[in-house]
């Protein structure tokens, strides 16, 4: 393992966090030096020094092994979590060490689960830092790093291939080196448009920028305890639905649609499946909310139903109503969509709708094969034929995802789950949704959960964000001596 290359690249990732800590400190200064100024400045200085330290000795290099690449991804995320927790821990209040770690992991992984009872108690600078962790995590700590590494560098190509899942790379229709730029253009573009939309709809500039960063990262941190519901504006709710949906669509498709000025690229089987699922689930949820007497009017029922289905499917976690008292059916649907989630190549977490569609098609093919054993069948995604070697990893990922939910649930039950959130919390955190049901529902928080559960949930968030394999790859390379030196 080349520690020199790893330390230099991880340092770049930390410098990105340091930059946003500095911006948060500037906001604190603008507010006349609120209580978070010292924590932010101290955190910035320490993070900056650790980030810049390798640059003193280590020169740019073009050599990087597969193992080094995975280690860079793993450590970039892990150290971002640790250093990102510093402003919270230093500020104090409800942030114990575990709570600060949980909030930081939740921010960087764009989960949006919080431990805060009253978000408004935080100073504005710390609220900005919370949203900034979403912004950094939404684009991906490593993608930020890739934006800085020169285009021609082989390091960049290798990291691009590792950070972006194979599913998401397929639809970019461009060279791997360009995909990072396309992802960044669309992401930042969406953020800017979301900011102006929120601002125009009546939010203050500060709330608008925080919610824009949060919605485009599919995060869910809000500047209000009542989330989007606090604004009591149908326009803001509708804008949020639109941006939550866009953040869950493959960014490559959005880019191609914008460049070609046509919606044709969006008319692919995955998008059709995703949109149909959202529409069907929204209608069923809305009907259930109205017919079971939760909402008084049809308009409110459709707004609540659609908003929360899109919010959970896009793994954003914003809310306009408390689902703690909702009937069983819409709650079950929310859990279902939070498992499947949005498209690959977007900022969403979860299994990804692409993989689920591949699974359905593979099941269909298997049934056909059983009925007509001598016929030849193939799995098609639009015009593209998927081979077994492409289908197998996707189905394996789904199986691993479900296994991890089971494992996490059992672990939670073993260490003690006083509030009964082992399963729902595991699903929600592994899929990076954030809110779940009950007291950790749309307007709830994880503050009452025991520390052991918070740690398990934060590991889930990390696994979900990097799509499981990189962490296992690093752990395997560390602990499995048999394969040492092969990469």
């Amino acid at each position, binding site marked *: 393992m080349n520690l*020199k290359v790893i330390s230099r690249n991880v340092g770049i990732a930390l410098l990105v966090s340091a930059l946003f800590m500095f911006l948060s400190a500037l906001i604190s200064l603008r507010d006349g030096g609120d209580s978070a100024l010292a924590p932010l400045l*101290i955190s910035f*200085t*320490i993070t900056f020094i650790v980030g810049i*330290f390798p640059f003193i*000795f*280590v*020169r740019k290099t073009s050599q990087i092994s597969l193992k080094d690449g995975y280690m860079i991804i793993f450590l970039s995320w892990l150290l971002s979590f640790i250093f990102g927790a510093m402003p919270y821990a*230093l500020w104090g209040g409800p942030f114990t*060490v575990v709570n600060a770690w949980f909030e930081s992991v939740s921010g960087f992984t764009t989960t949006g689960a919080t431990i805060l009872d009253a978000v408004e108690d935080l100073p504005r600078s710390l609220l900005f830092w919370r949203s900034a962790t979403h912004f950094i995590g939404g684009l991906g700590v490593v993608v930020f790093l890739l934006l800085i590494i020169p285009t021609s560098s082989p390091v960049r190509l290798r990291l691009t291939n590792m950070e972006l899942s194979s599913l998401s790379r397929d639809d970019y229709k461009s060279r791997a080196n360009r995909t990072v730029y396309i992802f960044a253009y669309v992401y930042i573009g969406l953020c800017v448009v979301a900011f102006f939309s929120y601002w125009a709809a009546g939010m203050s500039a500060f709330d608008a920028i925080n919610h824009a960063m949060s919605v485009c990262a599919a995060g869910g941190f809000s500047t209000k305890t009542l989330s989007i519901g606090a604004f009591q504006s149908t326009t803001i709710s509708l804008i949020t639905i639109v941006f939550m949906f866009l953040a869950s669509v493959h960014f490559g498709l959005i880019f191609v649609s914008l460049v070609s000025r046509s919606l044709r690229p969006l008319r692919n089987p995955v998008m059709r499946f995703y949109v149909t699922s959202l529409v069907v689930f929204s209608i069923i949820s809305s009907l259930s909310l109205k017919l079971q007497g939760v909402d008084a009017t049809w308009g409110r029922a459709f707004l609540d139903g659609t908003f929360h289905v899109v919010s959970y499917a896009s793994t954003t976690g914003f809310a306009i109503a408390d689902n703690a008292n909702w009937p069983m059916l819409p709650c079950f649907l929310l859990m279902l969509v939070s498992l499947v989630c949005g498209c690959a190549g977007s900022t969403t977490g979860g299994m990804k709708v692409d993989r689920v569609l591949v699974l359905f098609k593979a099941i269909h093919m298997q049934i056909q094969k059983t009925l007509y054993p001598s016929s030849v069948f193939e799995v098609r995604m639009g015009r593209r034929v998927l081979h077994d070697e492409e289908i197998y990893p996707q189905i394996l990922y789904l199986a691993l995802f479900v296994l991890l939910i089971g494992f996490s649930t059992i672990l939670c039950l073993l260490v003690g789950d006083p509030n009964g959130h082992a399963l729902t919390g595991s699903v929600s955190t592994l899929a990076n949704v954030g809110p779940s049901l009950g007291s950790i529902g749309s307007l709830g928080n994880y503050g009452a959960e025991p520390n052991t559960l918070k740690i398990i949930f934060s590991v889930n968030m990390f696994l979900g964000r990097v799509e499981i394999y990189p962490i296992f790859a690093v752990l395997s390379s560390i602990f499995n001596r048999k394969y040492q030196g092969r990469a």
Partner: protein
Amino acid sequence: MFVKVKNWFREFRLSLRMKITLSLSAIAVVLLMSSIISVLEYRHMSNYVSGLIASNVNNIHRTQELVSAVDGYNLKMLAVIGDDTLTEVPGFDRNAFLDRCNALKGTLGDNTKAQALADSVVYAYSAYMLASTELEDVFESSFINTRDWYFTRLQPLFTRTRVYLDELSASLYEELENNSKDFDSGFFRSIIPSSVAVSVGIILVFLLMFYIQTYYVTPLYRMLRYLRDYLGYRHRYTYTFDGNDQLNDLNTSITELTEENRSLRKRIADLKDKQ
């Protein structure tokens, strides 16, 4: 201008002295940060705890004052009733009592239980005082027994006031005890940030050690070995390593010197052969 800056950055290199100075300064800054955090946390913790404990003790003291004021008044009332003659109505500074109650309520903060008890004290006290104003009428009345009046009318109101005052006192003691417990956890919490900063400092020290080993110690050892091989066995000096400071320049110079030396030796050998 931009090209010039870009070129300057491209050609910029840190000298060996600069690298050592910068890295050690970075570690020094992190350690300084950790000490600043420790001092800040200590000051914050100290102010918080001393403020909290002082407030708790003050509240307990105020409650005790209220208790003794009510007890004192009640004793005076009892004395008058025991004498069976009303020479003077016992005096009580009601405004001072209510001021103390309000001051107490103002410093109870988030303790909702104590707030509620303080309110109860005020209401019970008001009822007790209202009843005690009947004393003159009771003495003037020919059909009310003063002792009966005291034990059936005033005593229960006094007891109620006293019970609320005792409960308030107990609640304040409980708060003091909880705050002492919080202090233990708060102390642990206050050392965490500085421990993180110290840990970062230690990590940087190890990282510096690794870099010095990789970029200076190991190359120096290898240079020495290659030089010995050259001097002892006439092996070519071909050692190169990653780096762009004075040590690398030294290595390049040694390579050039040894090559020059080799060519000179070769020429001398050729000349000897020709002779």
